[in-house]
């Protein structure tokens, strides 16, 4: 379309004002470029293509324990045997019992080693809160407080955690005061054990690497290191609720195979 002289005279200032307004708007409300952050919703990934819960960490380098560490680990009660043997095909309608304990609400303590459920995290200036979908939570303080001696508080499943954010968005967390128990890949922990967690978000914010370093000279010959990987859930995702319900006969039987063709 050919522009008349009048319209071009009229439009030029209008366009200039428009450009100026756009530039001004761009200055006052700049395009939001978010730095990588651990905040948000994450689901764990199976980088090893193991294909089952039992195999997920089987390729991890096993912890090198001291004699005392081996003794303490051997004294822990064996985990309950799964109801269905690993990798055994289920009959039609036979439930896969993913949790063969009874439903007991146990004090709202989220563990450090997020399972296949993934996790959700929300951060403000003072702390970051992690939750999974079973109602458990964990807090990491970001306000420069120090880790207190382990005798100050009663040990918990979450322990006591302090952390800080690096300029690249990595969250560094130090934790102690954990209840005694097993650790992934043959590790063990006591309330005195310290673990460092590095939540390292990818530059594009879509993936997350979580590196664990367990240190306790009484238990480990050298620090026990391994990593989990996660991917960010899609925008618009939401947390579901896993309701610990003793009256629900299907609690813990989360997967029921449909009739096979």
């Amino acid at each position: 379309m050919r522009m008349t002289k009048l319209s071009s005279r009229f439009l030029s200032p209008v366009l200039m004002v428009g450009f100026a307004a756009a530039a001004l708007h761009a200055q006052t409300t700049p395009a939001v470029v978010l730095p990588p952050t651990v905040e948000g919703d994450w689901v764990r990934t199976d980088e090893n293509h193991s294909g089952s819960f039992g195999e997920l960490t089987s390729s991890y380098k096993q912890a090198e324990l001291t004699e005392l560490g081996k003794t303490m680990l051997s004294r822990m009660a064996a985990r309950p045997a799964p109801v269905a043997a690993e990798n055994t095909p289920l009959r039609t309608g036979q439930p896969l019992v993913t949790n063969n304990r009874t439903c007991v609400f146990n004090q709202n303590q989220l563990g450090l080693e997020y399972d296949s459920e993934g996790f959700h995290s929300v951060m403000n200036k003072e702390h970051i809160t992690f939750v999974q979908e079973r109602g458990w939570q964990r807090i990491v303080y970001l306000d420069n407080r120090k880790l207190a001696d382990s005798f100050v508080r009663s040990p918990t499943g979450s322990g006591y955690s302090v952390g800080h954010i690096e300029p690249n968005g990595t969250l560094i967390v130090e934790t102690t005061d954990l209840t005694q128990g097993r650790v992934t890949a043959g590790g063990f922990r006591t309330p005195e054990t310290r673990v460092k967690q590095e939540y390292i978000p990818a530059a594009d914010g879509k993936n997350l690497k979580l590196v664990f370093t367990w240190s306790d000279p009484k238990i480990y010959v050298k620090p026990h290191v391994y990593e989990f990987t996660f991917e960010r859930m899609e925008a618009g995702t939401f947390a579901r609720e896993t309701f610990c319900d003793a009256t629900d006969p299907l609690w813990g039987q989360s997967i029921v195979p449909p009739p096979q063709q």
Partner: protein
Amino acid sequence: MKRNSVFSAIFIFSLALVPHVLAQGPPPATPAAAFDPHDLSGYWDLGPDGRSVPNAVLAAGAGKATLQEMEDGDKISERWCRPLGIPAAMDSGRPIAITQGRWETMINFEANSSPRHIYFRREHVNPDIFDPSSVGDSIGNWEGDTFVVETIGFHDKNGRMMIPGGGFRTTKSKLVERFKLIRNGQMLSVTTTWTEPSVYQTPHTYEFRYTRIPGNYEPRPAVGCDPWDEERAAYVERTFSPALKKAAEAAVVKPGTEVSVKTGK
């Protein structure tokens, strides 16, 4: 000579300032610390005088028999340690923790309850894919200095059903809460309105006022609850009628019982 004149000048200048300083009187009171009315983050305690709850105007659908049924259902939930959900978790007897983040505000409880995720969105999750829950599906948006939270999608059984002031929650209940910082940010007002025509003749509104707990507060784990603890069960069921006790026992399938499962095609 030059040094003396400098000292003299300073001395005279200082003397000149004395009346001015004295005229100011005592130092002014420390101004109240500024607070961000749009940041609800913190730990909040509901004190004994923090509840302003009128009696609800109930509809025909909330008759005496129905109310008794819902109350009994809550007792059975307590017996079996079912999580509290909304509204009970907002008044659990322990502080609530609000963390306001980038994409959501989360409320955590030092009680047996799922956390609340209040997403900064305009639309609810598609009900076709949302599983009803004890805390529902919450979205929150700011209207001036008030954070308005709308919740739908409540489960028909999970969570306590009874609502302060009378009435109960159903799957069709709509909850609107208006969070606002008052008293220089040291108090949080939460005005709660439940709407459900089969339960209430008019929307039922009440207000809780929570007091801010100092920043060095550290939340503690909730008290555990073991539904299989027989001594606890006997204590909890002490006030149950025989019929309610029977209903409570019938509500659960004992561990180890084989359950037949319907499967789809």
